[in-house]
């Protein structure tokens, strides 16, 4: 199932939305600063605002087509939308919130499916409670479950972490990873936080000023120095996939990449699991020769694939380390002093403690 969006909509005299993108099965992230028009796109797809013109289709079937005069109301689109705020119905218990959509749609009760979703989201203990007594993280999970139980054709998440602190965010992310891996439906996910996007998304659509600036597979976008500039050079970083190896007594776990081995703290996945590891570009140091007498454990032999000079003093360096792509951010002065150029062999040094649990997938 693939969602195709092409729309034009004037939100204010000074701001117009003009976007076109596809969301195939898997997680597509709409990424951009606040005010880039991300939430408005979700609202248009959900049918809560009517674009001035355009076409929104699911596998070719339109839910909105200004030329053909088609505009399905939200309740007939079968798209799940999880808003920034949980928006749980205050007069209903958690259980009745969860079942609200199925009853509205006239779907038969599905105890097995419900149990599965409740289990996946870890909300079994909350069922008889009222929304007013839930924590932010609990309410967010209930809202996701409520949308999922309507058996939507597409799930949209509008900054589900925006109102949550870092700890609650960590509480939700694993559930979303499970959702991505097991629910089997296209997920459109709006965020302005790159670590979350890197961890969840297979595709990234970068928005700015109401336009699509760039779109493509996440792995490519995250390792592309030019795209990194758009994603935010301070936060940019490639995502590599490694195999979990042995954990030493000091708590560091070996993660084997084709280009070398990293020793990382906080790995929760078991030995043999394949996990994504995000390495922020600003946590990578480059050296021409493999250095000695250095405290950093993680060194990868790489080749410079591309260089991109941004607006600031930094240079984004795209590296290939075996089959993996890595991104490093260095100053323009260092790049010049080292004579960095495409094809040059370098050693990338990554500080272990710079990679936190937020950068590691659950596997």
């Amino acid at each position, binding site marked *: 199932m693939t969602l195709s969006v092409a729309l034009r909509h004037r939100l204010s005299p000074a701001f117009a939305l003009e976007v076109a993108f596809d969301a195939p099965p898997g997680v597509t992230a709409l990424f951009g600063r606040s005010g880039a028009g991300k939430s408005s796109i979700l609202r248009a797809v959900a049918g809560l605002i009517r674009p001035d013109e355009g076409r929104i289709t699911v596998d070719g079937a339109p839910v909105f087509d200004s030329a053909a005069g088609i505009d399905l*109301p939200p309740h007939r689109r079968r798209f799940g939308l999880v*808003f920034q705020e949980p928006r749980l*119905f205050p007069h209903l218990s958690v259980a009745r919130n969860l079942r609200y959509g199925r009853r509205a*749609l006239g779907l038969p009760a599905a105890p097995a499916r419900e149990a599965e979703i409740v289990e996946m989201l870890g909300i079994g203990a909350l069922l008889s409670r009222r929304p007013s007594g839930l924590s932010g993280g609990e309410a967010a999970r209930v809202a996701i479950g409520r949308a999922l139980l309507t058996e939507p054709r597409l799930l949209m998440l509008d900054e589900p972490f925006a109102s949550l602190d870092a700890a609650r965010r960590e509480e939700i992310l694993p559930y979303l990873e499970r959702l991505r891996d097991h629910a089997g439906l296209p997920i459109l996910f709006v965020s302005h936080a790159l670590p979350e996007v890197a961890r969840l998304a297979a595709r990234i659509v970068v928005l700015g000023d109401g336009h699509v600036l760039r779109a493509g597979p996440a792995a490519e976008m995250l390792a592309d120095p030019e795209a990194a500039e758009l994603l935010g050079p301070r936060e940019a970083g490639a995502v590599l996939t490694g195999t979990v190896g042995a954990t030493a007594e000091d708590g560091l776990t070996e993660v084997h990449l084709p280009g070398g081995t990293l020793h990382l703290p906080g790995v929760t996945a078991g030995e043999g699991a394949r996990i994504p590891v995000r390495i922020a570009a600003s946590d990578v140091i480059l050296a021409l020769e493999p250095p000695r007498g250095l405290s950093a454990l993680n060194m990868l032999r790489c080749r410079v694939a591309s260089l991109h000079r941004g607006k600031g003093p930094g240079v984004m360096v795209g590296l290939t380390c075996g089959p993996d792509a890595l991104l490093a951010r260095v100053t323009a002065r260092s790049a010049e002093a080292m004579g960095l150029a495409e094809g040059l062999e370098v050693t990338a040094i990554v500080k272990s403690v710079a990679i936190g649990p937020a950068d590691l997938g659950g596997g």
Partner: protein
Amino acid sequence: MSWLGPEEWQAVALSFRVAICAALLSLPFGLAAAWALARGRFPGRGLFSALVHLPLVLPPVVTGYLLLLAFGPEAPAGRLLDALGLPLAFRWTGAVLAAAVMGFPLMVRAIRLSLEAVDRRLEEAAGTLGASRARTFATVTLPLIAPGLLAGLVLAFAKALGEFGATITFVANIPGETRTIASAIHAFLQAPGGETAAIRLTLVSIALSLAALLLSEWLAARMARRVGA
């Protein structure tokens, strides 16, 4: 209440009947008017609002006279209703209409305030979950404004219990038909030696109004807890 005379007892029972009918009758109209004022964007909205609130500021005797002009035995509307078996002039049904009109602005105001307090984002959420507009209204909006509906009902009921000017102008003061508590007190005060009866009805009136207010407070608090407000 054996200390009430038969005539007084009659007035109390009639007042109850009139007030309950007036409150219930105006509820659907009050809800529709409140909805139009809270959510509607249409030309003439200001005029509509002024019309709804007019009975609040008009002298009650003017409202009663207008009702008489519109629904009197000689007026077309009055004749039509008469032919349909619902005569209003000088009947207790007319007292219901007068009380309903007088309490209408209070009821609309209570419901409108509760409608304006509804988080519309919840209605949006219901739509994305598959609920049509009608279903959203029935399952989200209505439960959330229930305390406002109740407050509107109680206000309209209390106003109807105390209504006097419009009622006596429109349907006069006929014992057993249109003599409510207020009209009865008025009649007793006009007659020599009627003061004790007037005082008894005054006490009843105070007790009823107080009971209605306490009941509404209690119900509103219960409902507010139920909707998690």
